[in-house]
Each structure stands twice: as C-alpha cells, then as structure tokens.
C-alpha cells in the first residue's frame, strides 16, 4: 500500500513538473482565420518556424466571433500558457480587461500600441512607411496615371495603410489620381472576395491599372480579378507575389512572422512595453522575388531603395494617419 502510495505521488510529482515545464506559448488568430494568405498566415508561419526549430509545440485558436475574444484569453491564461500572443487591433479591449487579472502571464499584442498594462508587449508596425514604398512602385508602374486602393474593414489601421500608399504615389507623380474604396464596416469585410472582385472591376473602369489590396481574405478576390483583367495588383502582410506570378507587382510585407517568432523564442522572459517595427527594424518592407522580377524595373528598385534609406534617415517624413486622424494625400 505504501509502495503504491509513493509510486502514485511520484507519478503525480512527475506530472506536475511536466506541467510546469510545459509553459507553452499560445497564439490567438483574428477573425480572418489562420490561412488568410495575409496577416494571420504570417503569424502562423512565424509560429511554425519556431516550432520546427525548437521541436516544441504551441497552442492556438482561430476566433469565430467577437464574443470569443475575452473567453479565449482567459482560457489560455488559466491553462498556464505563457506568453499569449494575440493578433489584431480588436484584441485591445479584451486585453485591457484580462491582462490585469493574470499579472504573472505575459501577453504579446500585435497591432496594439495604446494599452497601459505592465505585462503586455505591444507591437505596432509602421505600415505607412511600407505602404509609401509600394505606393511609389504603383505610381511608377502605372501607365494610366490612376492607381487604386482597396481596404478591408473601414478602421483607422486600414486608412493608415491607404494614407502611406497615397503619399508614396504622389511623391512619384504629384498629379496621380488615387481611387480608394473600403469593403465594409463589419468584420465580414475581411472575407468577402466577391465584393473585392466587384470593387476591383469598378476601379478598373475608373482607369486604375495598379491596385493595392489591404483587405485580408477579400484581397484574394482583388488579386484574382486584377490578374483576370490584365492589370497589376499589390499584396499585403505576407508575400503574395506567388499567388499570380507575373501579375502581382509586389507585396507590402508586414513582418508579423518575425514578431511572433521573436516572442515565442523569448518565451515567458519576453520583454514588455511598446515596440514599433518600421523600415529601420525591417518590420515592414517590399517583397522582391522571382515571381515579380520581370515587373520591377531597375529604376523602380533604385528609387525604392533610396526612399527606404531616406525614410530611415529622416529625410522623408511619411505622415501617419494616426497623428491627426486625417490624411494629407487622400480623402476617405
């Protein structure tokens, strides 16, 4: 009996230590879904890279509705996951409510920069800088003098993208005409490729011959229709050049994968505070690979390289939409 008892307690102790050592990171995908070929997929890629390199595992959930946000956070926190990585601006309010209840758990919030919470690592991206560069490329590639922008849900973050894009396009050609549309005002706007297609056709009929899609899953429809109609498109977040080789001018990379990878690598030691990843930190950039090599002229890549350096050095100031909730180059 005593032998049995000690065996059991030993087993229990082993189980306990196993549990303690297994402080797995957790990753909460936003409503767009893990494989949106864009923002969330970048996070998935970063997490997979970490898992493959370390052989460790992580927990994940794809949110299906707004109501699940806080629930998912608490579930992971109760289960001892550390750090808990969240995707998207909409996690800000749930994080503000939950983070204080679990002071020993570290949270990593991608696309949130305004919370006052000591145990949250908040990562923002300077999307306007990257968008500025693709805006320059769009204006250089355009023959009609009209370029388009299609956003997903109409939120300040997406206007931030559009604003940088417009400034870049105007820097190359001050007379350029920029057509901007938002897909909708509800989260369904991230997953409506049919509407994305229709917006693309509407912009083409207004003369646009390069269209930048910052719209999650809706962007799949934009890129598809642009390829069908024989004009150029620009992808976002992940490298989307391979979706239609030779038809996608470039992609505005937002290195969410790096942010997620770094956070997982640091584990529960991850540094908290507010961090902004811009061109200087290689947090944003433009995608150049074999699929778009034929589309990018030497002038174009030179101009982009120069502008990148100028922005890093502070010679070019790309105005952020957040500064005054308005854009000098584009009226939404």
């Amino acid at each position, binding site marked *: 009996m005593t032998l049995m008892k000690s065996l059991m307690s030993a087993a229990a102790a082993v189980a306990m230590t196993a549990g303690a050592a297994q402080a797995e990171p957790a990753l909460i995908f936003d409503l767009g879904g893990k494989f949106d070929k864009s923002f969330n997929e970048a996070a998935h890629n970063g997490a997979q890279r970490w898992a493959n390199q370390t052989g460790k595992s992580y927990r994940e959930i794809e949110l299906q509705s707004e109501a699940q946000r806080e629930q998912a956070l608490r579930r992971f926190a109760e289960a001892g996951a550390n750090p808990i990585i969240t995707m998207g601006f909409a996690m800000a309010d749930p994080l503000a409510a939950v983070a204080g209840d679990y002071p020993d758990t570290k949270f990593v919030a991608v696309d949130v920069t305004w919370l006052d919470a000591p145990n949250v690592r908040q990562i923002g991206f300077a999307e306007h800088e990257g968008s500025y560069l693709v805006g320059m490329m769009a204006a250089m590639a355009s023959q009609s003098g009209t370029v388009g922008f299609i956003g997903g849900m109409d939120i300040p973050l997406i206007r931030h993208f559009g604003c940088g894009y417009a400034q870049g396009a105007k820097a190359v050609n001050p007379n350029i005409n920029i057509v901007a549309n*938002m897909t909708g005002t509800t989260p*369904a706007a991230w997953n409506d490729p049919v509407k994305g297609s229709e917006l693309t056709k509407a912009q083409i009929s207004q003369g646009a011959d390069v269209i930048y899609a910052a719209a999650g*899953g809706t962007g*799949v429809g934009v890129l598809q229709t642009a390829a069908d109609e024989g004009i150029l498109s620009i992808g976002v977040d992940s490298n989307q050049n391979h979706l239609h080789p030779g038809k996608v001018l470039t992609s505005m990379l937002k290195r969410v994968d790096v942010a997620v990878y770094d956070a997982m690598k640091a584990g529960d030691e991850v540094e908290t505070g507010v961090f902004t990843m811009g061109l200087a930190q290689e947090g944003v950039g433009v995608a150049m690979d074999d699929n778009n090599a034929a589309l990018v002229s030497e002038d174009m890549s030179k101009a982009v390289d120069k502008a990148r350096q100028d922005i890093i050095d502070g010679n070019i100031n790309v105005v952020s939409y957040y500064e005054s909730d308005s854009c000098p180059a584009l009226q939404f």
Partner: protein
Amino acid sequence: MDVFVTIIQILDSTIRLATPLLLACLAGLYSERAGIFDIGLEGKMLMSAFFSAAVAALSGSVWLGLLAGIASSLALSGLHGLASITFRGNQLISGVAINFLAAGMTVLVAQDWFQQGGRTPSLVGGGRFESVEFPMAIGPKDAELTGRSVSDLMSDANVLHLVYSELISGHSILVYIAFLMVPATWWILFRTRFGLRLRAVGENPAAVDTAGVSVVGLRYAAVAICGVLCGIAGAYLATALQAGFVKDMTAGRGFIALAALIFAKWRPWHAMWACLLFGLLQAIALRFQNIDLGGVVIPVQAMDALPYILTVVILAGFVGKAIPPRAGGEPYVKER
C-alpha cells in the same frame, strides 16, 4: 459620354451582383409559395459554392462542379424537407440549423481535402465559367486584334453598341440562365397545373388534399426546385464570379435574397426587379465611396443598409401589405 459610360458600367456590375440574389430569391419563391419557409438559402448557397469549387478543382471541369454543387444543395433541401415536411418540425429552426451546418461543414471538409485552411485551390482554365461573348460585341478578342484596350474601344462605340457589348454580352452562362428562370417561373407557377397546385398547397393544403393530390409530394417537389436554384447560385459565386471557395463567401446574400422575396411580395417578375434594385444599390455603394448630393453627403454605410431598410418599410405596411402564403410555416396535418 463619360457619365453615360459610368452608368452602363454600374448597370453591368448590377447584373453581376443581382444574379446570385435572383437565383436564391426564386428558390425561396418556390419553397415559400408551397408553404415551406426557408431561411436556409444562405447555407445551401454556401454548401454549393464549396462543392462546385472543390469538384471543379479536382476534376478540372466546371460542369461537373456545377452538378456537384446542385447535388449538395439538394441534399440540404432534402434534409430541410425531412425535418419540416415529413417530421413536421419547425421550419425556421431547420433553416437555421442548415445555415450553421453549411458554415461548419464547408470549412471542415475543405481543410480535410485541400489543407489550405478552409479554402479550395484557385480554379484555372476549364474549372471556371468563362464569359459568353455574343457576336458583334466588343470583347477581349477585339482588343487583341486592334491592339487597343477594351475600355478604349468601348468609349468610341455608339450607345446601342455599348449597351449591347457591356450589358447584354460578356456574362457567364449562369447569368442568362438566372434571368431566363424569371419568365419560366412565372409560366410554371401561373400557367401550369403543377403551379396551380403548388400555390394552392401554400394557401390551403387541406383543399389540395381533398382533391386527391399529395401535399407531401408537392412540397417536396418545391423544396427540391429550391435546392437546384440555390445550387446554381452557389456555383455562380464560386466558379464564375470567383475562382474558388473561401469560407463564408456568401456573406449574407441568402438573407438579402429573402428580403428581396418579401419586397417582391412573392411574385416572380417583382422578384427580378427587387433583386436588380438591391444589386444596383450595392453597385452604387461599390462605385462611389461617398455620394455628394449638392452639399448632403450620403455615406457608403447608408447605401449598404438600404436593402434592409426598404424591407422593413415594406413589412411595416407603408407600401401596400406584404402577405405571405397563408399556410406558410405550418406543417400539414391530415387529421387532428
């Protein structure tokens, strides 16, 4: 001329956007005229969108895809019929269940078959419905021959030619099927014995039963026609407008179709005009972010909400009364 070209382009977009609404609306018309309420239009379209795209991707033939889409939508119709006709369950609950079933099943099966996170691979070549070019219409072929862009050629054409090329020609075959279904539906419902019985079964099933005609049989037939039309609508979304399935890609179109059905007061020609109106509102909202009417700016959100507002106005009885088929929503019980 520029204004005119813009109007034509908006109308062209209207036709594309109205087609899935029209097919789903006519589907609902058959079902509801026979006394079976169907709020599962959305789910049936979604299921068909997935299976048509999946089979088209696997087989390379869009026609096989269309058949598979119709079959999957029919299966859901059969389920709805079984629950609400044979077992006399609540028709609304059964419809809601179908919507949830379709939303979950499509992504689950897609992930299992293709491992692309609930989407199908992009369709290429024969996996998609190509647009039909009518003779004499301006299309990509002319553009290739003359070396000018299609929009360039369009702006030079005269008015009739422009309307013909842009509005009438250049849609996928399913669009023409959808619009032909309108007179066909009118003829079937109001000029055939089957149509008379189908309408009667939605108004007074006891009378139909007394005449020795099977109520259950007629209602199953109506629900089956509904399944076929929803199947075509889903296939149109996934294989003609888009090149593949994306989760939740119907994005509420089944519910707008229901709104159109009420707006049209359950009549085929009116259904077409209602769908075209709702399509036009969407097309305008897509074309113009904000509409400036002499100082008053109408935001795009107002345009998006307009179909629902109009439906509420109709339901509230401001523009005549919308009276649904009398026996709608009630399962038929022979003896009490």
